[in-house]
């Protein structure tokens, strides 16, 4: 208040970088400790398991690097888009859990449009699927936003309920109008090749094996700079963050809090809807009752680990993707049960939450 009050010290230019590296180091140490501990507890030699993980994610041994990295990227793609969706919603203070439902609605929309494959030019149809899937995802998110601002229904509840609606809509569709021609499995027909995303890596790069790396992956990575630009370089993004940090102050500054919340939920839903279409056209190739293994839920730790920042979420989605690709390899080569891999993933999240809690107790930020 007075001159006597000591001003906070001015940070040196290198300080943010050093801080970031220090924290990253802490995360890695914490994660490795938990990883080794988990493997040890379940009787798997940690060094072998780590090696199998690394081979699956980055290549080495019998696996070509191009193939392994492709797998990592393909598996990171849905997590990246749904993670970005969480970033947008949570930065606005909307604790959306609705990623999975929005993603399913996007995939469902695209599958419905795919029925027009004999009438519409395939390239135009792919475009339509992307656009409409995104829009329906946006609508699914906006419903939760609208319920919040008009009826004060907490989005945590409404998005979960909307997830169920989407899940059972898909379930009904794949045993009903969209079921495959033999009518024996709860899934739709395989989409024709002309509607699928191209595989972009020549097989010669990966020792003759076709990688699953498809053009949709590029689309997902393109979303990172767009979301970043939106949040940090546009008026809407700025106002969205004010609403997230202090809705009262936003209101006092003449920002329409309700409008901003609905808009953020729509954008959040759009990203998930897009993820649904990309998964359908890139890897799944058909809609089925268990289309999503819970990407929309894994998105939350992905976004949290990424510090609710688009760039951080990119890194964290790559990390989760690598872990997934690695764990598939570990499962095949070491017969490590899949559930153990899930435990390791959860352990990774715990490690990060632990470090975050530690940082809150001993903050490095300047305080009043």
């Amino acid at each position, binding site marked *: *208040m007075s001159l006597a009050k000591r001003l*906070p010290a001015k940070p040196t230019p290198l300080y943010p970088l050093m801080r970031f590296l220090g924290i990253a180091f802490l995360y890695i140490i914490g994660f490795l400790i938990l990883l080794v501990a988990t493997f040890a507890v379940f009787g798997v030699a940690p060094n072998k398991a780590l090696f199998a993980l690394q081979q699956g994610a980055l290549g080495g041994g019998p696996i070509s690097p191009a193939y392994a990295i492709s797998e990592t990227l393909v598996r990171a793609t849905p997590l990246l888009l749904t993670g970005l969706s969480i970033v947008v919603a949570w930065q606005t203070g909307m604790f959306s859990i609705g990623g999975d439902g929005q993603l399913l609605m996007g995939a469902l929309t695209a599958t419905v449009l795919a029925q027009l494959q004999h009438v519409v030019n395939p390239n135009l149809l792919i475009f339509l699927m992307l656009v409409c899937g995104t829009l329906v995802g946006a609508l699914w998110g906006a419903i939760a936003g609208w319920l919040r601002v008009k009826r004060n229904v907490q989005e945590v509840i409404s998005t979960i309920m909307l997830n169920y609606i989407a899940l059972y809509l898909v379930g009904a569709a794949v045993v009903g109008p969209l079921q495959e021609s033999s009518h024996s499995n709860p899934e739709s027909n395989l989409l024709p090749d002309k509607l699928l995303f191209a595989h972009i890596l020549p097989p010669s790069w990966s020792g003759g094996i076709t990688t699953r790396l498809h053009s949709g992956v590029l689309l997902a990575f393109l979303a990172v700079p767009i979301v970043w630009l939106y949040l940090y*370089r546009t*008026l809407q993004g*700025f106002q969205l*963050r004010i609403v997230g940090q202090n809705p009262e*102050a936003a209101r*006092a500054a003449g920002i329409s809090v309700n409008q901003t919340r609905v808009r953020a939920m729509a954008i959040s839903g759009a990203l998930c809807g897009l993820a649904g279409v990309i998964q359908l056209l890139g890897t799944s190739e058909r809609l089925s009752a268990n289309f999503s293994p819970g990407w929309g839920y894994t998105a939350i730790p992905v976004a949290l680990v990424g510090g609710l920042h688009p760039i951080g979420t990119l890194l964290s989605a790559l990390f989760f993707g690598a872990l997934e690709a690695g764990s598939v390899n570990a499962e095949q080569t070491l017969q490590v049960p899949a559930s153990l891999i899930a435990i390791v993933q959860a352990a990774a999240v715990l490690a990060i939450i632990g470090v975050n809690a530690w940082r809150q107790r001993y903050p490095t*930020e300047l305080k009043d």
Partner: protein
Amino acid sequence: MNSARDTAGSTTPLAAPSSTTSSVQMQQIVKRYGATIALNGVDFDLQAGEIHALLGENGAGKSTLMHILSGMTQPDSGTIRINNATVNIASPREARRLGIAMVHQHFTLVPAFTVQENLALDADVPLHALRYRTTEAAKPALDQAAALGWQLDPYARVEDLPVGIQQRIEIAKALATNAQWLIFDEPTAVLIGEEIEELFRVLRTLRDSGKGVVFITHKLPEVMALADRVTVLRRGQKIATAPIHEVNPTLLAQWMVGEAPKTQPLSESRQVLRPLPTTPAFRAENLTVLGDKGESILQNISFEVYPGEIFGIGGVDGNGQTELAETIVGLRTPKSGRLLWYEGEFRPGQHPRIGYIPQDRRRHGLALTMTVEENLLFEAVKEAKYRFGPFLRRAALHELAETLIREFDIRTPSAKLPASALSGGNQQKIVVARALHHRAEWIVAVNPVRGLDINATQFVHTQLLNAKQRGASIVLISTDLDELAALADRTVILSNHQMHPIDLIQRDATQIGLLLGGASTKETP
């Protein structure tokens, strides 16, 4: 209510005073907050068996003094003696051990719990006891309430009860600790008519049973009706302590408000623009405003503000200042009435451009986790010149932020620090800079210099006067009458849901004090 009164003289005895001559003495209490002196050598004494009113305006130091007695704040110097033994009240727990209890203005109850559970929470039963019985733990407090003639339903949920009953729970809680010294912080502020009568009856009962009761208030009629003695504080100084039969409301009002302020050099600027233009810039017609809980805050008020005028609104906090401010910047929809801007539609944000300095900077003014720069730019980003399509012109905005930091002397090592890293005064400067820099035509400032040092205060006042000179219409809502006297062209006092015009130039301390104390409309129910 009536049955409650019938049992008022019930035979269950309240804890008897330990000695008829016991007393609490606070001597030469000094408390500083930074450069501000909240209490400057204040003496205060409380006898067993009396109701001692502590009277003063907002910021006079009443609450600080009692927070010291109840252990919530530590004095910088001064001594406290209970029954002539010097004590060190280091915590509320210690105060409780010494028999001091405070009934807060804002209740400390868990809304979702039942009455019994709330009373048990505070009871002197070790929490780790395995056989913890809510019923037993709550019994002493319920007995105390019954002794006062209150039948509290132990199983009612607190959130379902009216405020008056909630206060009784608070009082029962305080009494259950066998407190000998009871402090009531503005207890009537939340009550209505009959509830106030009932509270007064209980306070008298407590006094007659030998307790020492402190009654913090700024309402003169209540002092006259209830107190045995009164102490008046003004700006951290004790003005006087007197038995109630030696004072009258007029005298108390003078003590509370002080003598007329010195003529300020600033008032020259006021003469320049007189007489005011004939068309008001802003006009409010028959405005009725409700509070957050639907309670009536302002009833049917009308006023107008002219271009190049500072319209001052004074009054004790909690008389509808926040609600009025929110209404006239378009954040709160009035229940009825009309707002006009140059006799046309009042569309806040576009027509006119608004500069709003809200009352509570941490709640309404700032996003503390965002940077100083971002906080400065809440309003500026709306201007077309700072945008390129949907994108922000970052260089221009950064330059603007740096300029504002310099011009408004915001002390921060970097524009990129979170606003939470700044001191309160510098945080306030962010809010002021944001409200004033974009040539707002309609400025509403609520206590804009609260927490600022002298230089910063002067700076903000100069900024407001500059805005006035360029023709802005300004509403200055302040609890500080000297601030209003120095700046405002016209001043009204907000009390009892109404606006009362006053003349601060020919300042009549008695009239103002009576208005502040809500005495003038005592007759109205």
